[in-house]
């Protein structure tokens, strides 16, 4: 299973990068979100996979009786997801604004700040 997940992670990164390299602003955002998903999955995987044992201590127990999934990556990913959401929604709105002001989706037309050497 881990192999499959690794392939997915690779694919998410490849797809994300590919989309980042497109000229459309819209695709760029898709790319960034894919990359973010990939990174989250990567952290999750590196916490090692455990099936069906959420890190929740059962009622009446003080410690885990059985094996349990590593809770740390879960906490990290949770934080990362939320933060990522904040950044992504800002980026989405930014794109909207850029479109409203400049009336184009083509990133190649947005190079006036690099011009006039």
């Amino acid at each position, binding site marked *: 299973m881990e192999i499959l997940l690794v392939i997915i992670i690779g694919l998410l990164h490849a797809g994300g990068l590919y989309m980042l390299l497109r000229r459309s602003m819209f695709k760029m955002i898709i790319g960034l979100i894919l990359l973010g998903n990939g990174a989250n999955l*990567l952290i999750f995987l590196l916490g090692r996979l455990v099936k069906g044992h959420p890190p929740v201590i059962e009622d009446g127990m003080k410690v885990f009786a059985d094996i349990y999934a590593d809770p740390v990556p879960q906490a990290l990913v949770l934080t990362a997801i939320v933060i990522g959401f904040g950044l992504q929604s800002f980026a989405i709105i930014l794109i909207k604004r850029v479109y409203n002001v400049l009336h184009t989706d083509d990133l190649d037309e947005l190079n006036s700040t690099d011009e006039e050497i």
Partner: protein
Amino acid sequence: MIVLPIIFQFVAGTILLFFWQKTTLQKFLSILFSIIGLGISIWLFLLVWENGIMITQSGDWKAPFGISFVADTFGVTMVLLSSISGLAVSIFSAGSMRKERLEFGFFPILHFLIMGLQGAFLTGDIFNLYVWFEVVIISSFVLLTLGGKKQQLEGALKYVSLNLLASSLFLIGIGFIYGLTGSLNMADVAIKLDNLQNRGLVSVTSGIFLVAFGIKSAIFPMYFWLPASYHTPPPAVSAIFAGLLTKLGIYAMLRTFTLMFGGDEFMGDIMVILAALTIFSGGLGALLQQNMGKIFGYLIVCHIGFLIAGLGMYTELAIMGTVFYLIHDIIVKTNLFMVSGLILKINGTQDIRELGGMYKNFPIISLLLAIPLFSLVGIPPLSGFWAKIFLIQAGLQTQDYVLIGFIVLGSFLTLWVIARLWSEVFWKNGIDLPKKANGLYFSQMTKTDQWLMVFPIVLLSGISLYIGFGAENIIILSQRISTELMDPSGYIEAVLGLKTMTP
């Protein structure tokens, strides 16, 4: 206790949020908070200077389980510098920023930004560092786009996308670190990475960090977002960006590459090459620009090269040079963009072909502005000069002769660029431009606002002069930082509580 500056900025930002749209009050409060914040930073600095490394474990969970906050000399120095820059920018914006921007949360975000920076300087936890980074970049996104002008948006698009990319890479790097060590506390990670057999994996991971932080700190070939965006927001915003944002990347790089990936020779060599190319690209870029903001933007890139050079050579002397240069650079770059802001306010343009006559019309201000400009060049004995001695000495020791050549070239290009700027902006007779821009010109501003713009420049120029003439003290400071960085055992022991530190 160590988190006091962070908490304070948090409170400051939150209070300011509640006074949404009350701009006059916000101006006053922001300056007041910045002064108090500076006081706290000085206090913390002195405390650490006296007692050595100090640790706060958040929630009292002992390391490596909770999040440790570590105040070592490097951290508190950076906190102090960020407070100084923050204060200067706060005053400057109070004088120069357009009301519309102030009404949309400029000051609260400014304080959150400072909070993020100080958090990043003080945290001892790699994931926590990531979170602080995110605070900083989201704040910088907001500040950068505040106003929503065409140029700003275009610049912001590049800035945002490349920075998000960097964050993503940073996250991947953290994932690998956790996968390898099962820990996030940097001191703990350092020990565990050190014991790891598979050096190759550590090295690749460090490569990911190099690129993630490299994008943030704008080194070659990852600096592109900087010249594209730094000249687009109001100068007060550029000032805080120029002074502190790229330096945060440098800080993170210095921290991780001394503590966690210490002495990876391959990466060191890569850094030396990148440093040379960064100096080169920045210098060449600055050579031909006509817009003052862009010139300064490229100069930031150029001087980032000096900073990386020291880290790449990785000797105590070299790190000392980097740290000294860092201290100088934060102050002078913040100042520089305020200078450009002042010139913009006076003349209504930043295009050096149109500018001129400053020297004739504002002789005293001109002489004042000469201080940061020539400090930047490193005219001895001003502040930019001293670090170069260390870097060249270190280069001789490590036999990086080509790098020395690039350092000399970079210094020369800076000299030329600034001399040309001086001759165009200050000496040349200006063109009388029609005063058509939005907002008030300097001559139309109230006396108070004029002073609010000039005073921070005086303040930072004074500090620059102190760094130059009191170099001895700064050298002692850099030396201590460099020793602490090069031998992280003190840091690690203090964080993990292996031994109580006595200075």
